[in-house]
């Protein structure tokens, strides 16, 4: 995240320097430029303050009140009762179940997507007749809206008429159709697999970009020295793409921690798959409890903020070590 400074050095005299009025020293020009820059960033900042900063502040504020959705205006200040009270979020076993689900979902899906994404990226990095078709094909799951992919898979995994159950029963792999989305023991696995299907292409494309930045002559040198391909991969390729892979994994993990669409559509309010985001929306909209829901939302925000900051610090200090 190193930022380069390459503003034109206006102080240097050039052939056309006479075009700049002499009465205005370079410092004034620079100041005018900086003012202009602030002016141009301002609209973006105003919009972001309106749709991100202000609503976030309101959510934190609501979490300290007993506001309800039907009457947002009639609220009392209740301190930390929504967090620590007897009916507070931290005392709710459902909340902790959703925290567990979210963390497990993030760990499983990011691991699988990274490994499979790496595999697909390696296939894409190889010159072959199938490469063009492969790249086009993996873009398809990525382009499909999450709601649609959730519906497609719900239909394929339909109990008992879905194509996957039909196939499994016909081939004798299972005796009875599996209730993929209804069976609490199975629905979590189903959600992870559907997410992996949809998001592996994203990881594959990012990994491929990293692979393509590895200089070709490294491979040639290794080939000349007769190093076996898997050793080249483990000792040369992997360390070289690791930084980019880590960035992709962090982005993916931060995205997975707020998972909502796929779970809401496929398993609705099933306890076995409820994520933190699903829990928050249920409290806010379904139960109309703006206070408690906002408290849960604040906790989710803090979780993600802490992880982001920890990662930023870690990469910063590692960068400093390298220097």
């Amino acid at each position: 995240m190193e930022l380069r400074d390459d503003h034109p050095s206006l102080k240097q005299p050039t052939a056309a320097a006479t075009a700049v009025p002499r009465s205005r020293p370079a410092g004034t020009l620079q100041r005018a430029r900086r003012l202009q820059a602030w002016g141009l960033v301002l609209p973006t900042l105003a919009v972001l303050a309106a749709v991100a900063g202000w609503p976030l502040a309101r959510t934190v504020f609501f979490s300290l009140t007993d506001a309800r959705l039907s009457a947002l205006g009639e609220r009392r200040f209740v301190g930390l009762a929504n967090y620590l009270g007897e009916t507070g979020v931290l005392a709710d076993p459902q909340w902790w179940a959703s925290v567990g689900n979210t963390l497990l979902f993030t760990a499983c899906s990011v691991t699988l997507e990274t490994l499979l994404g790496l595999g697909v990226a390696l296939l894409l990095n190889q010159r072959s007749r199938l490469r063009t078709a492969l790249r086009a094909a993996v873009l398809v799951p990525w382009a499909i809206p999450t709601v649609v992919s959730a519906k497609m898979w719900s239909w394929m995994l339909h109990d008992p008429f879905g194509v996957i159950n039909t196939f499994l029963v016909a081939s004798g792999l299972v005796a009875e159709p599996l209730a993929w989305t209804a069976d609490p023991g199975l629905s979590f696995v189903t959600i992870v697999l559907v997410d992996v299907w949809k998001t592996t292409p994203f990881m594959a494309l990012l990994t491929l970009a990293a692979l393509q930045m590895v200089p070709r002559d490294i491979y040639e040198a290794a080939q000349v020295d007769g190093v076996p391909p898997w050793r080249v991969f483990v000792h040369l390729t992997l360390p070289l793409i690791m930084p980019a892979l880590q960035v992709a994994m962090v982005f993916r993990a931060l995205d997975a921690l707020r998972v909502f669409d796929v779970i809401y559509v496929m398993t609705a309010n099933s306890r076995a798959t409820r994520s933190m985001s699903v829990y928050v929306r249920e409290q806010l909209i379904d139960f109309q409890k703006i206070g408690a829901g906002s408290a849960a939302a604040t906790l989710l925000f803090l979780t993600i903020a802490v992880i982001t900051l920890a990662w930023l610090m870690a990469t910063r200090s590692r960068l400093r070590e390298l220097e």
Partner: protein
Amino acid sequence: MMLAALRRLASLAVIAVSLFPLAYAISTSFKQGSDLFGGDFWPSRVVLSNYRSLFRDQPFGTNLLNSALVAGVVVALSLGLSLLSAWALGRVRFRGRQALLLSILGVSMLPHVAVLAGLFELVSALGLYDHLAAMMLSDLLFTLPFTVWVLTTFMRELPKELEEAALLDGAGVFTLVFRVFLPLLWPALVATGLLAFIGAWNEFLFALSFTLSSDERTVPVAIALISGSSSYELPWGNIMAASVIVTLPLIALVLAFQRYIVSGLTAGAVKG
């Protein structure tokens, strides 16, 4: 030789797994009645009734138009705003720039439910509840940080001689951004615009929470809420027909602009 054969097999498997759900959705969308539950891939009789009833019994045409309007406005606003700020953030050195870039990146990490209550209040106060404008406003939460971030990285790469020449000719900053840089940034604009479009087109949580009437719904919400006579009897033929309709244009766009998309995605994550 062995390795090459294995690679071929793996590639074919990945292609099959990637495409099968869409293919199955397409075949389902042409099935009717008991054909739906027969377990065969090909429909025994191809019918269009699933598509017809979508537009006749439901405002699906309106929903499609809603999605296109929301995504179009969101993309236009995001690109316009971020072009201006990308010049400032990418090419001018000023105090607080790093902090600004990091906070913009931070916004893109925000869990959307964390702003849901506050946005709901804002949307209601502005009188936008159950209007498309509610989504046009709230979708900026995730498209704007992304377009600013990517366009800034692209803007930074442009040669400074261009800018010097333009400034010496007495060009103002708007001329500089829109006349000099914009033509050079087309590939970046296409890539980021397309990704932002897909993001807004697919957005679900805000659209679900800020609309009430079926005429104001966007497509993802309409599809998620298609229901049958009972919760156990979902009209899968209709749902798959709707899924095919929203997915095919996206796939056509994505395949047509493959290269741009890959460059946009990587600029967003790896280069950053």
